[in-house]
Structures are given as C-alpha cells and as structure tokens.
C-alpha cells in the first residue's frame, strides 16, 4: 500500500511538471461578448413563470392522455361489442339447428329452456322434469308408430329400425 502511495506521489510530481492550456484573453473577450449578446437577447425569465409553465405543460399532457384514452375506447369498444353480438347470434343459430334433427319437440324445449333464466324453485324444477318426461314419452310413442325419415345430410349407411331387422 505504501509502495503504491509512493508510486502515485512520484507520478503526481511528474505530472505537475506539466500544465493544461489556460483560456487566452482573446478567448475571454470573444466568449464574454457572445454571452453578453445572448444575455441581452433572452428576455428575463420571471420567477413565477417557471411553475406556471410547468403547470400548463402538465395540464396539456393530462388532457392529451385523457383524449387518447377516450379515442382508443371509442374505436375499440364498438368492435368488441360487434364481436360479442356475433358470437351470441352464432350461438343462437346453433341452438336453432337442433330443432332440425329428430326429437325436435325435445330439442325445441331444451332450446327454450336454455334461453329462459335458470330455474331456482323446486316446483318449477318438478314441472320442468314432468314436461321433459312427457315429451320423451310422446316422442317414443311417435317413433314406435311411425319411424322418422332420415334427415337431410344424415348418412344413409346408418341402420334404421327396419334395417336392423333385415340383418337379423
């Protein structure tokens, strides 16, 4: 450590044999003249102007941010809403397609039940179950009396009631 200090002192002594250039009197004259010119050109900035200017800048920035937020929400909200409605509409049409398939009374009932608010009391639930059972019974009876024709788009390879009998 002492050795390093000695070496540093030696280097410092060596460096002190030199010195940096000093600003010349011509440079002083030139720079002070330039600075005085700038002094006279710039209006004195009053002390109250600084906080007022900062306040104005902050207010302008706040207004800009609010305007930006409003604009972006105005732009994005309708797009989001239309997307949501499309989805709901799509969901409804999917449910409506259920009525095209066999057991259409049941499907229609399920669709209407789906669209109703959820059942909360016991009597309504019992009524709902009764209705479903009745519809299923009716459907079963109809099926026994008259087998349904294959729906459009349904594979003809699927065995019907008579088809099953023919295999046996």
């Amino acid at each position, binding site marked *: 450590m002492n050795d390093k200090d000695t*070496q*540093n002192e*030696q*280097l*410092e002594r*060596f*460096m*002190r*044999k*030199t*010195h*940096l*250039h*000093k*600003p010349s009197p011509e*440079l*002083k004259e*030139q*720079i*002070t003249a*330039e*600075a*005085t010119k*700038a*002094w*006279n050109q*710039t209006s*004195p*900035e*009053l*002390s109250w102007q*600084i906080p007022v200017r900062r306040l104005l800048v902050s207010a302008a920035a706040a207004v800009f941010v609010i305007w930006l937020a409003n604009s972006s929400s105005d732009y994005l909200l309708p797009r989001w809403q239309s997307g949501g409605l499309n989805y709901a509409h799509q969901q409804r049409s999917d449910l409506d397609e259920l009525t095209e398939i066999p057991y259409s009374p049941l499907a229609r009932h399920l669709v209407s039940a789906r669209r109703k608010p959820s059942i909360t009391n016991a009597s309504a639930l019992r009524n709902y179950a009764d209705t479903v059972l009745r519809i299923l019974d009716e459907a079963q009876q109809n099926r026994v009396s008259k087998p349904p024709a294959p729906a459009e788009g349904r594979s003809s390879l699927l065995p019907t009631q008579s088809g099953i009998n023919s295999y046996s």
Partner: protein
Amino acid sequence: MNRSWDNILDKKLPDNMLRAALAQNDPAAVELMWDRYAGDLFAYLLVVLCSRHDAEDVLQTVFVRIVEKRHRLAKARNLDAYVYRIARNEASSFISRRKRGQKVKSLDESWLIMSEGHKEPDDMAEQLQTALARLPQPQREVIVMKIYRQKTFLEISRLLGLPQNTVASRYRYGMKKLRTLLENLIL
C-alpha cells in the same frame, strides 16, 4: 503567474455575489462567471474532448447556456455542480456529434504543456498527453481535476454528483493505468 494564485483568483468569488448579479439580471455577471469558472471548465473540457479548439467552442456554448439559464442558476442549490452539469451535457452532445462525423477536428494538437523551469525533454508532455488520452474519460476527468486543478475528492464528488468513494476509486484505477503507460518515462 503562479498556479496557486490563478486558483485563488478564479475561485474565491462568493456564491451570494454571483447569485445576486444573476438575479438582478446584471450583464456584469458574465464577467464574474468567467472569472470564477473559465479556468476549471476549460481544463475539464480539454481533458474530456482532448482538443483545444473543441474545448474553446464548447466553452462558448456552455457560457451561452449559462446565460440562458441564469434565473435557474441563481436559485440552484449548488452553483458549481449546476455549471458543471451544463458543461458535461454540452461536452457529451459535442462528442456524439463528433462521432456522427458532423464535426471532425484534429485530436493530435497539444493541450498539455511543460511548465516553465523544468528541463525535461519537450516530448514528455506529449507522451503524458497521449497516455492521459488513452484513459477512460471518467478516470481522466478525476485525475485532471485532482492534479491540475488541485481539487479534493470531496469537491470533485460534489461537482460531478458522484459518491466520494467512486471518485477515489476512479482516481486510483486511473493512476494505476497511467503508471503502466508511463513506466519508461517515470523511472
């Protein structure tokens, strides 16, 4: 003139006199500012920019900036630190302009000279200047402020807005590198 007298002359103007002149919008403050800061700022800019011409150009810009910000300067908590910050900012933007090639000047001009009364060879100052120029800028500025402007670590830390330990370690590392670079010259 003796260097210690130079220091006393360009340093010891009280803060309150300068603040009063600035606050009263008195153009005589330019002269006071020059007397107080020109020597230190010029030395600082010389070692940062490694060019006398560039240092002169930037010194002028610094003084114009000081004048433009005179009312803020009058209220600054630390006058010296505020002035140095202006100088550092101007030097940095000048260096970035120089890197972009907008303003290229010779860097091999001398900004370090032998003091009178020493009989060392002339190229000693040149070698020392070259070695200093090879140091990283943060180490170079601390070394020059300490050795050529006789500032303490505490003063340098206040001027540059750095912790005192950082300043001391920059000085130590800088001196170590400089010793290695000037090995043949010192021994």
